[in-house]
């Protein structure tokens, strides 16, 4: 029984990470007006930055966390000009292909230049493997607690931003009707840039939690994550922020359960299954594609 509960906690932690990722993803879809296939790759790159910062500061926890979060924000910001002409033209499919190309470039950089392509491994003190709560044969680690609590805080902050601030209203307006947003005098380009910054921030935070949860990173992690994030987004409905949360938790649970019995590679199969099911039954996603 306790093992089961521990597995659930693990699944929730994993699901929270996916939820953060899909929220950043959806924000870029809705406000950025693009299909950010390379978002997960930027997140993995941030993981590398975190690892690197810890390496040069002798495993300083704070340095690693800051490096991850800041680099996520900055990298995302840097990609905005690339997509700007496409967002302006509302060329969604074009932005998808551009993002694919960007993703490949990032993967290549990680495969060839960073750590000479060797898998990086996150130092123990960030991984948070110490058991914080023990009950019976099961344990809950510091990492898991940090992830769940951190995610909840991030979401509260994000939804507060979205629903209670001027900038959040501007985001939602742009997502619902770019024309109305323009008429209201909302600065289109500047608002898009903000969305990239926030998505990047969430990506950076996810990178840290991912580092805790997985403990390693490699150049192939980008593609792996991208597939899952897209599966979640499609399952809930691309652009649907609330729905994405739910779908992410579902994936987390499904993966957590399956991974207990099958090798890691097969986790991709779940994502694939989700995609195929939703495409056949409800192509627009379970909850529809609205903000």
């Amino acid at each position: 029984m306790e093992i089961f509960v521990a597995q659930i906690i693990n699944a929730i932690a994993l699901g929270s990470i996916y939820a953060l990722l899909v929220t950043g993803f959806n924000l870029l879809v809705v406000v950025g007006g693009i299909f950010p296939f390379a978002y997960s790759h930027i997140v993995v790159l941030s993981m590398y930055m975190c690892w690197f910062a810890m390496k040069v500061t002798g495993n300083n926890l704070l340095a690693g966390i800051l490096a991850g979060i800041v680099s996520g924000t900055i990298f995302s910001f840097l990609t905005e000009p690339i997509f700007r002409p496409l967002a302006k033209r509302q060329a969604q499919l074009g932005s998808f292909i551009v993002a694919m190309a960007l993703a490949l470039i990032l993967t290549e950089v990680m495969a060839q230049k960073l750590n000479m392509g060797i898998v990086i491994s996150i130092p123990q003190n960030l991984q948070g493997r110490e058991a914080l709560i023990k009950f019976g044969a099961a344990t809950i680690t510091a990492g898991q607690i940090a992830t769940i609590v951190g995610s909840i805080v991030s979401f509260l902050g994000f939804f507060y931003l979205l629903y209670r601030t001027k900038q959040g209203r501007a985001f939602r307006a742009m997502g619902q009707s770019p024309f109305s947003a323009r008429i209201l005098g909302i600065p289109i380009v500047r608002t898009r840039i903000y969305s990239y910054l926030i998505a990047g921030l969430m990506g950076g935070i996810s990178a840290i939690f991912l580092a805790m949860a997985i403990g390693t990173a490699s150049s192939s992690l980008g593609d792996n994550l991208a597939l899952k994030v897209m599966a979640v987004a499609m399952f809930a409905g691309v652009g649907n922020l609330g729905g994405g949360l739910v779908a992410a938790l579902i994936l987390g649970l499904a993966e957590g359960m399956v991974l207990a019995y099958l090798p890691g590679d097969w986790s991709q199969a779940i994502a694939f299954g989700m995609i195929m099911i939703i495409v056949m039954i409800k192509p627009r996603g379970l909850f529809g594609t609205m903000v």
Partner: protein
Amino acid sequence: MSYGPIQALRGVTIEVNEGEIVVLIGANGAGKTTLVETILGLTRAAVGCIRYMGEDITHKKTEHIVASGICLVPEGRGILPLMTVMENLLLGAYHFKGDVDENLKLTYSLFPVLKERSGQMAGTLSGGEQQMLSVARGLMSRPRLMMLDEPSLGLAPSIVKELFKKISDLNREGYTILLSEQNARQALQCAHRGYVFGTGEIVLSGDAQELIRSSRVQQAYLGGSCE
């Protein structure tokens, strides 16, 4: 404020003075919407210039034009259906630099119906209420020039009457209004001056009351006989 010739419309020149209601009438596709959108910077004028408060705003970006006090209540209302009435109004105040709560209170006093519905999703309002919301939203920016594009479209006659009364009220409060309308009679009745559009050009212009009496306008837009 004056506006010079704009190419997509051929040789259009109109002028709006502070405190006036100026009306553009003409059939759909005659260029009224194009003119209004060009003023706001949504479409670019190939030739000609737009001068506002002494400044040339022809090549300015929409966000700056709106920030400097021109607002548009677009054709079709342009409200955000998935956001509440209050959120729509707050969005109208995006560039407003004063006390937003005061502003909101004032707007609600002018549009009590909206106050009742302030927490409702804007998409669930009736056509007339949505139009009021759109106008009120424009008001939240405390504009110097308020442009309304076909506000009576799709509304029941009794609501249209109320709408034009509201427009006159606003003008009396001091708002300068540029109104583009197919409903020529009611529009001209509350306006000071008017321009008549026909496929991209100005066909007639002058004092609004004179236009109502003009036989050309009567035949083309007012159903032929003077009521």
